[in-house]
């Protein structure tokens, strides 16, 4: 087990380092830089040169990369030219907000999705189950901006019970931010619920058909026990993976929803950073996305190992 964890961790770190370098070089290779974006129409040749010199953008790319990696090793993520602040400082409140949004959306979506998936998966062919599934399919296939627009129209225009957009600062207290989280969180939760619920439903339905579930019933194990102890742990692993992937997405992939609701999370920061050619910020955000995904799938694997003794023993498929 320890060996496995170490190997996985080493591999993840390796992948991460390679990607960090590639991302940095990739973004640096793209045309435009922070100074052109910062100076806008006031850019003169001299001012550009000055700005680039001030921010070390005139050095050879490899040297910039070296400096950046050295900084990274010290825990310094770089400096945002456009925003005139260290990247870490810019990201910190955004990460908190992203976690709040992802957390609320997760709480709204995951437990309900697993419960509903479990309930409907056991009776796959029933009318209710099929209706729920179809509704989830619809919810899953609607683009976020569509879901967002509809929810906005209903919840803050027709029945004005929720604030339409966030109008507090990114570093305001969580209490101030909380009322603003609901609309984006509900939008995300609808999508995530649909994905997880359908995965759970399919998995439960497949598991309930497996011989051991049948065998347990035939030997008189109570139905509730069959579901809770026999079907649920066996049905969870595929869903755990889906949960991990969607949780990672909730933290770092919510660009559209954040723009629509003006939510000060990582998604909007990324959209702005790209528009501003804010190299260090873009790279940091990309790497954060990568790290979150790697961590999430790592955790998912760990949970699956807990659920399934065979995977633990290395008998199962890796």
């Amino acid at each position, binding site marked *: 087990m320890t060996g496995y964890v170490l190997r996985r961790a080493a591999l993840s770190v390796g992948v991460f380092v390679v990607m960090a370098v590639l991302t940095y070089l990739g973004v640096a290779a793209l045309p435009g830089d922070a100074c052109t974006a910062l100076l806008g129409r006031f850019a003169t040749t001299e001012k550009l040169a000055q700005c680039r010199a001030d921010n070390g953008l005139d050095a050879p790319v490899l040297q910039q990369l070296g400096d950046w990696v050295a900084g990274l090793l010290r825990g310094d993520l770089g400096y945002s030219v456009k925003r005139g602040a260290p990247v870490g400082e810019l990201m910190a409140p955004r990460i908190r907000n992203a976690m709040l949004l992802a957390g609320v959306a997760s709480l709204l979506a995951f437990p309900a999705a697993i419960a509903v998936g479990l309930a409907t998966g056991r009776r796959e062919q029933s009318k209710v189950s099929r209706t729920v599934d179809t509704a989830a399919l619809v919810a899953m296939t609607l683009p976020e901006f569509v879901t967002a627009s509809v929810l906005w129209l209903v919840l803050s225009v027709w029945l004005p019970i929720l604030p339409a957009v966030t109008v507090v600062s990114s570093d305001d207290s969580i209490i101030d931010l909380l009322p603003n989280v609901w609309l984006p969180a509900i939008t995300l939760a609808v999508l995530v619920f649909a994905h997880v619920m359908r995965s759970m439903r399919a998995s439960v339905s497949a598991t309930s*058909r*497996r*011989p*051991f*579930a*049948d*065998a*347990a*019933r*035939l*030997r*008189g*194990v*109570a*139905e509730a*026990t*069959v579901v809770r*102890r*026999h079907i649920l*742990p*066996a049905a969870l692993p595929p869903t755990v993976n889906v949960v991990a992937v969607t949780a990672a997405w909730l933290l770092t992939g919510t660009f559209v929803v954040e723009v629509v609701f003006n939510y000060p999370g990582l998604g909007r920061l990324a959209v702005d950073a790209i528009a501003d050619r804010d190299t260090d910020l873009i790279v940091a955000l990309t790497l954060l996305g990568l790290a979150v995904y790697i961590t999430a799938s790592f955790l998912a694997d760990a949970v699956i190992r807990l*659920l*399934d*003794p*065979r995977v633990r*023993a*290395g*008998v*199962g*498929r*890796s």
Partner: protein
Amino acid sequence: MSGPAIEVEGLTIAPCGAGVGGAVLRDIGLRVEAGTRLGVVGESGSGKSTLLRAMVGNCGRGLEVVAGSARTAGHDLFALPDGDRRALLGTAVALVPQSVGLSLTPHLTVEAQFRDVGMGDRTSELLDEVGLRGESMRSRYPHELSGGEQQRVLLALGLARDPGVLLLDEPTSALDVGVADGILRLLEQTQERRGLTLVVVSHDLGVIERVATRVVVTRSGAIVEDESLEQLMRSPRHPYTRALLDAAPSLGQRHARRGNEGDSIASTEQVVRADALTVVRTSAEGGRARRASWRSTTALDGVTIEIRRGEILGVIGESGSGKSTLLKTMCGVLTPASGTLAMSDGANLATPLRKRPSHLLRRIQMVMQNPDDSLNPAHTVRRILQAGTSHDDDASAALLAAVHLERSLLDRRPGSLSGGEKQRVAIARALARDPEVLLLDEITSALDVTVQAAVIATLVELHERLGTTMVFVSHDLAVVSSIADRIAVLRNGRLLEVADTARLLEHPGDEYTASLLALARR
């Protein structure tokens, strides 16, 4: 309890909405007296498992009761509310389902599974009763148990709450003969000790013979015979029963078209020789090493054996003995770790498959155990037979004729063929290359008994006509001894002995062989 333990009347079960026309069980009537032992025998698809399930009021997913009733332990099961019916399971009647390896919940320890039927604290005791060391077994997970142990655990779980009726579906089908024997003995003992009503379903008449006093034969969803065991063995009434009895091979009975080994056509000329052949396998799919499960096993350990031109060499052993490894090494799927393996003209068979020149590939062909797996479901029979050859349809048709199949099969795909037909196509494919040595790996074990007999007959006929050297691998000593000129016995990767069939049957050279013989004679 007196009177019938099980009473089935006019029971007809069909897929939901399909009506009587598509019934899987039609108009079944059956009484089983308390404390007796009933065997149900029939081939796959005959409805025997559905019948067993009906006895616990569970007709299976997607099926419905069209007519009739089933009473077990005095309850009209299909009329009971779900909850009441479930309450009877495990207490009045228990069913141990088929597919041993899949019937224990993989993520729960043995003890946890006992806990779920309310017997957690008696786990050790109950396991002891089925011949397991309960103390050491109870904290294990199912994947840490062997097949035999799993079946015993399932049995103990079924018996845990002391039901009067025990139903078993194919209790031994996936087990080695020795292990199966142990289970059957355990069943007999338990039945006697507890005075159980026992119903055992099997495709294997041999198993039924061991455990039942009365036998029901099912075919196409109907009961065609219902007799005491003695009566049935002595004078089967239904032609199907007769066919079943005839088809079941028994030890020492030579195949009708095989002479005694004395007048065998086999020469003493070697075709293939293995010397101190050792094969190490890493357990993984298709021989591909995958990090998650690197486990090395010595599958063949210093095996020296020769294969003579024109003979049928039988290879016998239980699972893990290395018999399939021997075949796969000969055809190049596996490569030896040490030792030599060569044809008599010097062609080196230690060459892996991908590096073998095509003339060498042609000389050794193999027919594999499961035709569902060995025939590409996406291809037509024509493509299967003609790929890699220059055959035209006529040549293919001739091959099909040789295995008693119609030319019209050329355009069909494996999915639309029966199991026997598929295995014949697989044999025809091997023959299409006109091999010197034909390797046959458990080719009948996936087939029903009657089909098995017909395939063996075809094989013998081909051997007679073509004189091809054959290596016939099987776990079934009766089948092997009925056709083989010589028999090799493998155990745990070692070759215990090779001898002429008759000699081996009469004077086994090894204790293990003797025990196999004893088991086969029961």
